[in-house]
């Protein structure tokens, strides 16, 4: 196993990767993906979207129906799992119950006959704060400790790529947040390429440099958490990553060129401008999307802090006060209800009571336009 050093082009590359199970179910659909060396990469999607299958194909535990997997110049599509410079942190940890923690961690080193394995095990146990547990069995450890053993057992081998299959899924919320920080710290310390599979969008966004949102065996969109959130390309991404208000609109014209180009959309009689770079439809109809925290509301007649066009004649139908913020549900003039998150800065000096007539507005640069043929409810999570 070669040591990871930056700039040698040992990227993980998936080309046309396809997996159809014998029962006819296609889990992964012609996937093309490049994971840059040393990056923290997250595969995000709901259960059954093919993310775990993708991970297992990279690990060698599942055979692709078509396509190739390579690390740098070396193709590993048909390589046995034990010959790949890849290690996995399994969802249920899969620690060997008959071996001590130290023996678990040493397992991979021993198989490769690394001669100073004892010293390396000590170092990694120190890194993961497990020295005290070295001689215990997995069954005697708490969930968080088992999780760290699984991590230590994988990274002690210094793989080129570390695969993490929902590694924090079995932990409670508080521990999960703590482990997220820990994982990120360890990744930065060891510099290994991390491919992290999760269905928790907050987890993916807080840790990963790049997130690929997967749905039904294909990657819907790939990018930095910021790009994905501010400029989703599909209704699925718009709903799965955070929440979105999607409002039916019709393209009525284009103005400007280059960075200033905007698309004018008629939204139930109100004309809204959307930056051309955030328009992801070629047809005349589309879903105009706006994030709830970007929606500004103000009681009718008072000034609104946005240069965009404001929509009058809206009514607050629900308000839930969350301390740090308030969630308002607002009925638009055309009957649709949209959500608005407002920080409780104290600026207003109180809540807007339910039933109040309000004006609604948002800065045009925050809106995006998606294809009308897509399901507006795709990827929406129950909360």
């Amino acid at each position, binding site marked *: 196993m070669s040591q990871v050093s930056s700039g040698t082009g040992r990227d993980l590359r998936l080309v046309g990767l396809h997996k159809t199970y014998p029962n006819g179910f296609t889990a992964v659909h012609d996937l093309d993906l490049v994971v840059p060396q040393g990056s923290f990469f997250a595969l995000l999607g709901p259960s059954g979207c093919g993310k775990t299958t993708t991970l297992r194909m990279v*690990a*060698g*535990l599942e055979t692709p129906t078509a396509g190739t997997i390579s690390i740098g110049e070396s193709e590993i599509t048909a390589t*046995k*799992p*034990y*010959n790949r410079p*890849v*290690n*996995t942190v*399994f969802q*249920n940890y*899969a*620690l*060997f*119950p*008959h071996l001590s923690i130290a023996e678990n961690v040493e*397992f*991979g080193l021993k*198989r*490769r006959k690394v001669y100073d394995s004892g010293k390396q095990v000590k170092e990694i146990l120190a890194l993961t704060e497990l020295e005290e547990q070295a*001689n*215990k*069995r997995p069954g*005697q450890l708490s969930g968080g400790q088992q999780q760290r053993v699984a991590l230590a*057992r*994988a990274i002690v*081998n210094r793989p080129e790529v570390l695969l993490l299959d929902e590694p924090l899924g079995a932990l409670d919320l508080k521990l999960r947040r703590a482990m997220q920080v820990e994982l990120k710290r360890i990744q930065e310390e060891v510099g290994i390429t991390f491919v992290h599979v999760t269905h928790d969008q907050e987890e993916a966004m807080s840790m990963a440099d790049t997130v690929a949102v997967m749905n039904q065996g294909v990657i819907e969109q790939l990018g930095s958490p910021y790009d994905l959130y501010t400029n989703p390309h599909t209704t699925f991404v718009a709903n799965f990553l955070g929440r979105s208000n999607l409002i039916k609109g019709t393209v009525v014209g284009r103005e400007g060129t280059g960075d200033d180009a905007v698309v004018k959309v008629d939204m139930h009689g109100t004309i809204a401008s959307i930056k051309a770079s955030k328009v992801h439809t070629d047809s005349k109809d589309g879903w105009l999307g706006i994030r709830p925290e970007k929606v500004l509301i103000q009681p009718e007649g008072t000034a609104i802090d946005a240069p965009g066009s404001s929509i009058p004649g809206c009514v607050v139908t629900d308000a839930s006060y969350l301390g740090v913020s308030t969630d308002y549900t607002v009925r638009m003039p055309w009957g649709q209800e949209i959500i608005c998150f407002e920080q409780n800065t104290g600026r207003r000096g109180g809540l807007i009571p339910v039933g109040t007539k309000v004006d609604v507005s948002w800065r045009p640069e925050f809106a995006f336009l998606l294809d009308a043929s897509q399901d507006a409810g795709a990827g929406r999570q129950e909360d």
Partner: protein
Amino acid sequence: MTRIGRWIGSHLVLTGGLLVLLYMYIPNIIVAIMSFNDSSGARNLYAFQKFTWDNWLNPCKPDNLCSSVVTSIEIGLLATLGATVIGTFAAFGLVRHRFRGRTAMNLVLFLPMATPEIVMGSSLLALFVAAGLGGQLGFWTILLAHIMFCISFVVVTVKSRLAGLDGNLEQAAADLYANEWQTFWKVTFPLVFPGILAAALLAFSLSFDDFIITNLNSGQTVTFPMYVWGASQRGVPMQVNVIGTLMFIVALAAVIIGELGARRRRKAIASR
């Protein structure tokens, strides 16, 4: 009266349990006592006459007693080996692979356990005779029969252990650079071993104990149960009780050692 009643009430479960235990172990206790019985010159062989060490000092005194024990142990060990190896392979095949007829195979392997021994014994005899082995009934035909009926028990025992094994562990081993061979010996086998050991012990006790099937297929060979059966026609020699007691002690010792070992291991882990 009510106080006694209350006392019985509060001790009923314990009393009941002890009575059941006593009921289960009375035969062993009687056998142990009778092994010290001096039966020489007695008319009733099943009543305790006089205490003696003779039976324990000369256990092989009755003709053919010890040779029958040796035969039974030989057959028992070989049958255990054969049935455990075949049964373990079968269990792995049935649990790990999906193939046509798997369900049927499970049933077929289970059937011998449900077949009356007398039926199995006589059909085996018919088979051996039809195969031209009628003249050679003896050690090897007994062994073949024993391996056969022990396999089912081994398969069932090992299968249940194997089914409870987390398949992810083997994938984790493969992921950690263990090839198929290393994965088996470092992960699968150590985890399934308790099941295989239990299956082997079961097979040995089934083989050692068997009378009906053995008797039908034994020719001139005499196993320990057959010896006891034959001797009981005239009166069982007291040395049989010695052998019986010894067997009980060996079994008890095995259980105690196993339990002590497990307890020490648990303690060692906890104190480290």
